[in-house]
Every structure is written in structure tokens, then in C-alpha cells.
């Protein structure tokens, strides 16, 4: 039994260890000052920040409605929101081109407005938001569902309005679930590759995010590709630790013990 656990763990960790074992840490760090790396890092952070802001701003009220209102087709809506979660990124890329591309469903409308999204930074943001938002929304739905409706009712009876109840009662109770969902969403968005390379393509400083730069550098300079991979391992690891801390903080009222709590 322990042997199996050791094999599984070794299998999962070996590629990550290999990234750091191949080249000395000093050399890896030295690679990080290259323009191709700094450009990609800045672009990744910028597009992620915009995408995640959109995800939280739109996703939070959407998740609240899905969690608290009963309307026909609600379960279907919850399933549909999660669909991009299981969609292969290449399919997302094709879908985004078919929808927002110049010859796509909305292409004519966007063209008339003088907007073209394909091959631009906006395309990166759309791709990242598309693949990462379900991670936030499904977790947010679960977090809102776990809020005791009696507390909400009490707040309303005591005279607090809907908005005040939401911001002072519901949000604080759901915040750890929301934070966990956002951490997952951010991690998934930061790693986004397939949909981005198809829909936004790869231009240094404009659309070339870290994963795309890793792919690009693989053909040119393996050491630089390793260095960027190491950087993303560190960032992802930090996110994971932050996530665990968020979830275990204040053990009095866990909103969602597991990352993938079923959203009923």
C-alpha cells in the first residue's frame, strides 16, 4: 500500500524535480532577466489581473443567483457554467475563434464596431477568463449555498436591506470559499495555453504569456524554457499554499472543506 503511494507521489513529483535538477539555480535565476521572460511575466500578470477582476465582478453575483434563487432550468444552468471546466483547451480555442473571430458569429458585429479581438491582448483576457471562470463560479455557488439561510433571514428581519445583508452577512460568511475559488481560477488562468495560442497567438510583449513563451523558447533555448517553468512552479506552489491556508483559517466555520465541493 505504501509502495503504491510512493510510486504515485514519485510519478507526480519527478517532472517538477527534474525542472530544477537540470540546470543550477543560479543559472535559472540569471535567465529570468531576459526580455522574453520579463515581457511574458508582465503580460501574464496584467492579463490575469484583468481577467480575474472580470471573473469576480461578474461571477460573484451570477453565483449568488444560482445558489439562492430557485427558477426553472437552474440545475441546467449550474451544469452549463461548469462545462468549460471539462472542455479541452483546444476546443475552447476553436470555440472562441468561431464566436469572436473576424469570420465568427459575432465577427461581423464586432467588425462594424471597429473592434477586432483575435491576435490582441483582449483575446488573451477573453481566453483566460473563459477557461478560468468556471473554477471560481462553481466554488462560489458552493460557498453561497453553505451560508445558513436563517442568518440571512435574521438580518433581513432586523431591518437590513438586501444589499447590506449581502455585503455584511453573506459575503463575510462565504469569503473563504470565494477566495479558494479565485485562487484556483487564477492558477488555471495563469497556466492557460491552448485556447490562448489559437485565439490570441504569440507575440512577445503583446500576447505571449509565460506558458506561450515557454513553448516558444523550447525551440530556441531550453535553459530559458526551464527557467520560466521553474518560475511558474514556484508561483503555482505559492498559490497552493495560500489556498490551503485560506481554507484552514478560522476553523470555527468551514464553508467548504474540499476544493471541489459538489454544488448540489
Amino acid at each position, binding site marked *: 500500500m505504501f509502495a503504491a503511494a510512493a510510486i504515485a507521489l514519485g510519478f507526480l513529483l519527478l517532472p517538477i524535480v527534474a525542472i530544477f535538477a537540470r540546470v543550477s539555480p543560479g543559472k535559472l535565476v540569471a535567465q529570468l532577466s531576459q526580455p522574453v521572460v520579463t515581457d511574458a511575466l508582465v503580460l501574464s500578470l496584467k492579463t490575469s489581473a484583468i481577467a480575474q477582476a472580470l471573473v469576480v465582478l461578474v461571477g460573484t453575483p451570477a453565483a449568488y443567483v444560482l445558489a439562492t434563487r430557485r427558477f426553472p432550468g437552474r440545475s441546467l444552468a449550474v451544469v452549463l457554467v461548469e462545462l468549460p471546466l471539462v472542455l479541452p483547451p483546444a476546443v475552447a480555442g476553436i470555440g472562441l475563434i468561431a464566436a469572436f*473571430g473576424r469570420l465568427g458569429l459575432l465577427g461581423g458585429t464586432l467588425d462594424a464596431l471597429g473592434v*477586432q479581438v483575435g491576435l490582441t491582448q483582449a483575446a488573451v483576457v477573453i481566453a483566460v477568463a473563459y477557461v478560468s471562470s468556471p473554477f471560481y463560479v462553481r466554488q462560489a455557488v458552493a460557498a453561497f449555498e453553505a451560508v445558513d439561510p436563517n442568518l440571512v433571514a435574521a438580518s433581513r428581519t432586523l431591518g437590513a436591506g438586501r444589499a447590506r445583508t449581502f455585503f455584511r452577512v453573506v459575503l463575510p460568511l462565504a469569503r473563504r470559499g470565494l477566495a479558494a475559488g479565485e485562487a484556483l481560477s487564477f492558477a488555471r488562468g495563469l497556466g492557460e495555453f491552448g485556447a490562448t495560442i489559437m485565439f490570441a*497567438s504569440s*507575440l512577445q510583449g503583446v500576447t505571449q504569456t509565460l506558458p506561450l513563451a515557454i513553448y516558444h523558447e523550447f525551440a530556441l533555448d531550453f535553459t530559458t524554457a526551464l527557467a520560466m517553468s521553474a518560475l511558474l512552479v514556484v508561483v503555482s506552489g505559492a498559490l497552493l499554499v495560500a489556498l490551503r491556508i485560506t481554507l484552514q483559517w478560522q476553523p470555527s466555520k468551514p464553508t467548504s472543506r474540499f476544493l471541489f465541493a459538489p454544488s448540489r
Partner: protein
Amino acid sequence: MKLRVLAAAGAVGLAAVSVALAGTSQARKAPHLTVFAAASLTNVLPQIDPHGRYSFGGSNMLAAQIEQGLPADVFASANTSLPWQLHRKGLVTRPVVFTSNRLVAVIAHGDPKHIGSVQGLEKPGLRIVMAAAGVPVGDYTRKVLARLGMSDLVGKAVSQETDVREVLAKVTLGEADAGFVYATDAKPVAGKVSLLGIQKSAQPQVLYAAAAVKASTHLQAAKAWVNKLLSKPAQTKLRAAGFLRIPH
């Protein structure tokens, strides 16, 4: 918890078994060679050898994969420099030049943006794509533009693609207004794109070279495969696809 560990171990075990099975079945039968080939050869190579297993992509990406030890038997590159680099590192046999190509600019069918000629690509507001430097077609594109005195277009490109097929796709999808590809890539999509010819004096020498990968377990078969590219039937198929005779 125990169940999860079991499941993980099971998955690992299954993967190991399937890898082992794949290994044995491969060793017994006549070799189906794994060919790493330039993206521009996507249509023609399976016509020459339908039994090959192909991985098409930017030649520089494929060369990097061979350097990292991916199990290719043959490398067919859209330039001569990459196979020669690998040859000097002792990774592949002496490269054999087997065909040639030329560059064209592709634009939307019927030229809705009234570009007219390659020089018309200087028009402001056009969205031009090309392959990245290091990708053979990207290097050729830079050479052509330098000879035409239009190197400023390189900085204006809205995308630097990883292989020639990606460049073509951006134009056929309408995402870009123009892109630089090989004449053979444009041929099968003649109904979707229009061509802007590039004058002979500006054309780079586009030579394709192939070599057998020395680490191949089927080295003899791989060498024979490379030589077969020079045979009459193979050359006829290359010519039919629009590839050019090797210049002397």
C-alpha cells in the same frame, strides 16, 4: 484515502503496462518510422509514405525535440542549417537536400483590402502575420523583406507564429490580412486566399534537407527512407504538390 492511493497506483500501473505493450508490438513488426517533418510537408509526405508516423511542426521545434531525445527516426527540415547543426552534434546522419520551395504572401480571397502587391503590404492598418525568427519560414520571410527594403514590416507583425501552417490559418480564418508562407501551402487553399507573388530576385533559397536520427532503433530503414525521397515516384509527388526541383 486508501482507495485514492489504490486508484493512483492503478493508473500508474496501467500506464506502465500500456507503455510496455506498445514497446513490444513495435519491435516485432516491420518498422513504421516516426518522421519529424516541417509543417509545410504536411500534405505531401503521407502521399509518399502512407505508413509513416508523422509529427509535423516548425522545424526548429522538431530539432529541439530531437536534441532532447524524443524518439524520431527521420528529421525532414525546411532548411539545411537545422539538420546540419544536429549532424555536427552527432545526432543525425549527413543531411540530404531533397526539394525546394519559394515564398509567397497570402491575403484574403479577392483582395478586399486592395493591397495589390507585396509593396502594398506597407499600407497602414494592415494586420500582418509571419513566423517567428528561428522557424525556417520566419527566417526566409525576414530575408525576403530585407531584400525588398521592407524590413520594417517585421516589427509591425501582429503575430509571430511557430510554424507556417499557423501563419496560413490566421489568414484563412480572416484574423490577419496577410501572411508569408510557402507557395505549396497556399496551393490547396487557392479558393480561400489570393496570392501576392514575390519577385525572383528577392526569393531566398528554400532548400529542404532530411537526415536519419542516429539514435533510431531502425537506423538502416531510416537511412533508406531519406534516400527514397530522391526517388522518381517521391519527386513526382513533390512536384505535383508544387515543390520545386533542387537547384544546381
